[in-house]
C-alpha cells in the first residue's frame, strides 16, 4: 500500500485507482468506486489485527492457567534405589501421579524381548531402544497406552498376559517383556520415561 498524497482529497485521503475517471472528484461516493484499498481500509485492517492480538493475549492466560502449574511440574522428578530389586522382581514407584514400573529382567526375559522380529510389531522398537545402558533394568510408565488403566503383572501372582510382560484388564492389551504392545487395542508401547543412572544403584526419573 503506497501513501500517495495526490489523491488525498478522495476518500478522506485514500488512494483511488488512477484509472477511475472520478478520481479527482471531491465527493464521498468516490470511495465506492475505488478498487484499490483506501486508507480507511488500512486503518480497519490494522485496528482489526491489533484487536485480534489483544484479544488473543487476553484469552491466552485464561487457557494456559489450565496447564500443569509450576509446583505440579516441580514434583516431576523422583529418585529410586534399585539395588534392592532382585533379578526377576519388579517395583512400582509413583512419578507425576502415575505408576512407573521398574523390572529387573531375567536373562530369559531379555532373550525373549530380543528374539522378536521388530517388523512384526505394531509400534516398531527394538529392545535396545527400550532400556538405558543396562539391559536388565527396564523402566516404563505403568499406564496402558489405550485409555490409561494400570496393567497387571508387577506383583508375583498377577497375570502377565500372553507375552509374559503386562496385561491390561480394561480392554485386554498385552505387553511383552520389553513393555511393547503385542495384542489388544492399545496403539503404543508402554512409554519409557526420561531417566538417568545417577550411580550404579540409583536412578532419577524425570
Amino acid at each position, binding site marked *: 500500500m503506497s501513501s500517495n498524497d495526490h489523491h488525498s482529497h478522495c476518500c478522506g485521503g485514500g488512494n483511488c485507482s488512477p484509472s477511475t475517471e472520478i478520481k479527482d472528484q471531491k465527493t464521498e461516493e468516490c470511495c465506492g468506486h475505488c478498487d484499490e484499498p483506501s486508507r480507511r481500509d488500512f486503518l480497519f485492517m490494522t485496528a482489526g489485527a491489533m484487536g485480534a492480538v489483544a484479544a488473543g493475549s487476553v484469552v491466552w492466560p485464561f487457557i494456559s492457567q489450565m496447564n*500443569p*502449574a509450576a509446583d505440579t511440574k516441580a514434583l516431576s522428578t523422583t529418585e529410586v534405589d534399585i539395588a534392592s530389586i532382585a533379578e526377576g522382581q519388579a517395583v*512400582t514407584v509413583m512419578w507425576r*501421579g502415575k505408576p512407573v514400573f521398574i523390572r529387573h529382567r531375567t536373562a530369559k526375559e531379555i532373550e525373549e524381548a530380543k528374539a522378536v522380529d521388530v517388523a512384526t510389531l505394531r509400534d516398531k522398537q527394538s529392545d535396545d531402544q527400550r532400556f538405558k545402558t543396562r539391559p536388565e533394568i527396564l523402566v516404563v510408565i505403568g499406564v496402558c497406552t489405550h*485409555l490409561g*488403566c494400570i496393567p497387571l503383572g508387577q506383583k508375583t501372582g498377577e497375570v502377565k498376559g500372553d507375552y509374559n510382560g503386562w496385561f491390561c484388564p*480394561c480392554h485386554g492389551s498385552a505387553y511383552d517383556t520389553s513393555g511393547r504392545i503385542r495384542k489388544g487395542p492399545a496403539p503404543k508401547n508402554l512409554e519409557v520415561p526420561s531417566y538417568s543412572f545417577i550411580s550404579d544403584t540409583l536412578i532419577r526419573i524425570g
Partner: protein
Amino acid sequence: MSAGPRTPFENPVVEWVDQRLPIFTMINKEYGVFPTPKNFNYFWNFGAIAMFMLVTMIVTGITLAMHYAADTTVAFDKVEHIMRDVNYGWLLRYIHMNGASFFFIAVFVHIFRGMYYGSYKAPRELLWIFGVIIFLLMMATAFMGYVLPWGQMSFWGATVITNLFSAIPVVGTTIVEWLWGGFSVDNPTLNRFFALHYLLPFVIVGVVFLHVWALHVTGSNNPSGIEPKTEKDTLPFHPYYTMKDSFGLVVFITIYAVFVFFMPNALGHPDNYTPANPMVTPAHIVPEWYFLPFYAILRAINFDVGIPFTDIVFFEAKLGGVLAMFGSIVLVALMPFLDKHPVRSARYRPKYRIALLLFVLSVFVLGKIGGMPADAPLMHIGSFLLTTTHIAQLLTLYYFAFFLVILPYLSKREKALPMPESINDAVLQCKSGKCCEA
C-alpha cells in the same frame, strides 16, 4: 421479547409492573392462552419433566456444594460427611444422584418423541439442534459430577474418558495434560471439574431458554405431525396442558421417589464407595448407565481403519472409536437434514416406524453390551466364537446406517399412508376407531 399489545390486568400491582415490564402479559401469552395442538399424548409431558429435573438438580446441587470440598484429600470424606452428618444430607445427595439418572430418562424419552413424530423437521430444525446441544452439555455436566465423590469409579472413569482425547493426532497428549492440569487425573482436575460442574447447569438453563423460545416461535408439533390450521385444532395451554403436565409430573416424581427412598444405589456402582486409588484399576470400569450405548460404540471400533494388507492406516482403532462415539451424537443433530420426507409423524410412515423402532432396540442392546466386559464370549458357532464385541459392531453399523443410509433412502422412496386433513380430523378418526393411538 416484546409482548405486543397489552390487555390491562385487574390487580393494580400486577398492572403497575406489567406497564413497565410486560412480564405478566408475556407469561399469559406463552403459558396461558398459548394455542397448543389438542391431540398431545403423554410423550408431550417430558419437556416439562426435564425442566423440573433441571431445577431439582440445581437446587440440590447448590445445597450439596455448601458441604462439599473439591480437594482430593477430603472430597471422598466430604461426601460421607454429607451422608452421615449433614442434616438431611443423605436426602439431598440421593435426590441429586438419582436425579441425574431421571433427568436422562426424561431427556431420552423426549428425544425419542421428537424422532417418532418428526418434530425435528422444518421449521423446527434449530429447536432440535438446541436440544442436542443441551444433551451434550448434560453429558459433560453429569460426567464431571460423577468425578466429585472421588471414588474408584470417579477416578478411573475420568481417567479413561479424558484419555480419549489423547487419540487426537499430534496434539493429543498436550490436550489431555491441559485438561488434567498435571500428568494424571489429580487435584487440579478435581478442582476444575467442580468449577465446571457448578457452571454448566446454568449454561444449560441459557440454552433451554433458547430452546423454548424457538419452540414458541414455531409452536409445538403433535402426534399427527400436521400443523394446526384452525381454532378447532388447538386448546389454550392453561388449564388443559398445565393440568396434563402436572399429572404426568406427579407420576414421574413418584417413580423417582421410589428410587430415592428405597433403592438409592440401584443405579450406581458399588466401587464408587471405595476411595480413589491411582495405583489400582478396578477390574471392570463402567460408566454411568446413561453413557453405556455410547461407550459400547466406542469399544466396538477395535480395529485400525486403513488399506487392508498394507501398513497404511488412516486412523488407529483408538481414534476411530472416539470419532464414532462423538459422531453418533452429531448425527442426531443432523437428522433434519438427513430425513427429507415431507410427512412428519411415524404414524403415517410404516417403514420409517420399523426402522426407528429397530434403532431404539439397537440402542438398548448397545447399552446392555456397554455394561459388560469387552469381548465377553457369548456362544460358539462352529469354530467361531461370537463375542459381545461382534454384536456391538453389528449394532453400531445399524446405528450409522439408520442415519446415513435408511433416512435418506426412505426420504425418497417411502410412500406415506393417507393423511387426515387436519388435527381435528385425525382426532375424530381415532375416536371412530380408524387409527391406532400411536
